[in-house]
């Protein structure tokens, strides 16, 4: 198939999406945020069978989300429309042991529900995450996407990111 889906957002400029609020996640968001995290993992599996999602991923995701809520070195943002969580972004602070600048804000998970895409919400969430991670000390922002995920690749490169590391994998 030659069809390529459009990037998560089609707008490059910043600006708030009407009716949608980007904010730090609270305990009440944990269940919805975990659902969205599992969706990112399933989406990864669409790109590569090495990302087959484990049984019980939902429960793991909830623990993962809860552990991110009050940790100083982790960031968990949600986009909400009224009571409904429509997007999630999780990041954590890491140290680059041999490189400088060393403090790295590493985006591990990022997902927006399909009907809220193409409205620049992804752009806005990334901007907010970048700002918050800088406040947490990050001097480099890094995001992880599967190699085959061209949508993710375009999303980040369009916003000034470049590919830094290629992970190679095989099942022995």
């Amino acid at each position, binding site marked *: *198939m*030659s*069809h390529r*889906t459009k990037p998560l957002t089609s707008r490059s400029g910043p600006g708030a999406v009407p009716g949608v609020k980007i904010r730090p996640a609270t305990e009440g968001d944990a269940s919805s945020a975990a659902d969205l995290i599992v*969706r990112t993992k*399933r*989406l990864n599996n*669409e790109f590569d069978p090495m990302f087959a999602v484990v049984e019980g991923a939902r429960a793991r995701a909830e623990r993962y989300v809860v552990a991110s809520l009050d940790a100083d070195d982790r960031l968990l943002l949600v986009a909400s429309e009224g009571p409904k969580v429509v997007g999630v972004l999780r990041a954590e602070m890491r140290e680059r042991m041999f490189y400088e600048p060393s403090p790295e804000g590493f985006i591990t998970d990022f997902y927006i*529900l*399909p*009907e809220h895409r193409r409205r620049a919400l992804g752009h806005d969430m990334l901007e907010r995450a970048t700002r918050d991670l800088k406040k947490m000390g990050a001097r480099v922002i890094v995001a992880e996407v599967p190699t085959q995920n061209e949508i993710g690749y375009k999303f980040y490169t369009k916003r000034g990111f470049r590919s830094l590391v290629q992970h190679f994998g095989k099942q022995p």
Partner: protein
Amino acid sequence: MPKSRTKDDPSVKALAYSRFYGGKVGISPKVPVRSLQDFSIWYTPGVAAVSRAIAADPDLSFEYTGRWNTIAVISDGTRVLGLGDIGPEGALPVMEGKALIYNYLGGVNAYPLPIRAKDEDHLISVVRALEPSLGGVNLEDIESPICFEVLDTLTREMEIPVWHDDQQGTAGVVLAGLFNALELTGRRLRGTKIVLFGAGAANVAAARLLVKAGADPKDLVVLDSKGILQPERDDIDSLSLRNKWKYDLALSTNGERRSGGLKEALRDADVLVAAAGVGPNLVKKEEVREMSKDSIVFLLANPVPEMLPEDALAAGAAVVATGRSDYPNQVNNSLLFPAIFRGALDVRARRITDTMVISAAKELASFAKRKGISRRRILPSMVDWQVYPSVAATVGEAAVREGEARKKSSKDELLKTATEVIEHSRKTMDTLRKSGVIIEPPD
């Protein structure tokens, strides 16, 4: 419903007759050969003058050759009837049958042309390469969702009309039938709640046409084998990558955000269009009972509809249509495609737009109304041969209006031309039969 295989069974006859005739269509001359000297006109050296003229102005190929009235019926054999991927050779008898219908009902010269394509890009490239010989292309029996990309790409890239009958043909006839069924049950398209069961070629195109004809996308609910399409379905990201047509429907339809299966979809729905697969138990009586009063139920699977029509009526449906000729209200693509191409070729259209298909559907519905409609007769019958020139003229007129026609004609002129060309085809058949050139089949 299945019949025993007697010698009158169409399957038995088809096998015997196919061997007897060795094919359903052939190429026969249009010009007289008075003596062998005539070949110096029809062929070399005289033909070189015609070639030089066309080389200088390729558009003249529509006037100096049969291109103006020639299409190819092209398939890769990946989804033939209900038989699945049986390959291009297996598709050949079907494409021959289609070519025969094109010729007899639409006066169109159609070449049956199944091709061996290794993938979608190869299929697109072969069809594109055929353009100089053709006035149009009928795509047929190509698997979904590849068929959508193939049609979209070829429509965009070719300067002759490309038609995929499993999408536009079925959707167009559904729309025509629906116009009259809505009128008979006192409804208007806007505000009618329509459930499309099955999200393959026919229903994806039907959804698009319905919206362009005036239905509110929020009033449509589409189901595939996994249930109702909606934006938060678990497989939505997979759809976004693998089937953008279904993905777009998931985002744009179903304003009430229903989820679940057919029962949930049909609650208070006015119309069911099932193109979901061979029945008869895919739709149940209790599910139709969930629909609003005087519901409309189209069951398109062949040979066995998604539910027995009598069961749909017993469950409260006011109008029931199927793909079968032995029940009332046959939703038959053959009512449309010969006329669509007759009209498109007569104005040398570049494309067949959705607006042209909707115009054709409206004319098909109007023709039926002029003859008299009832709950058991919402569409014309194929024996009403005047429907073809009538729809063809409407299609040609719509192409002119849409700016897709390279040859402008009035509707009266188009009707006259279409009538003459179609009558010529019918007369040719009569003459060939009467003269014994086409002999009757064996007993």
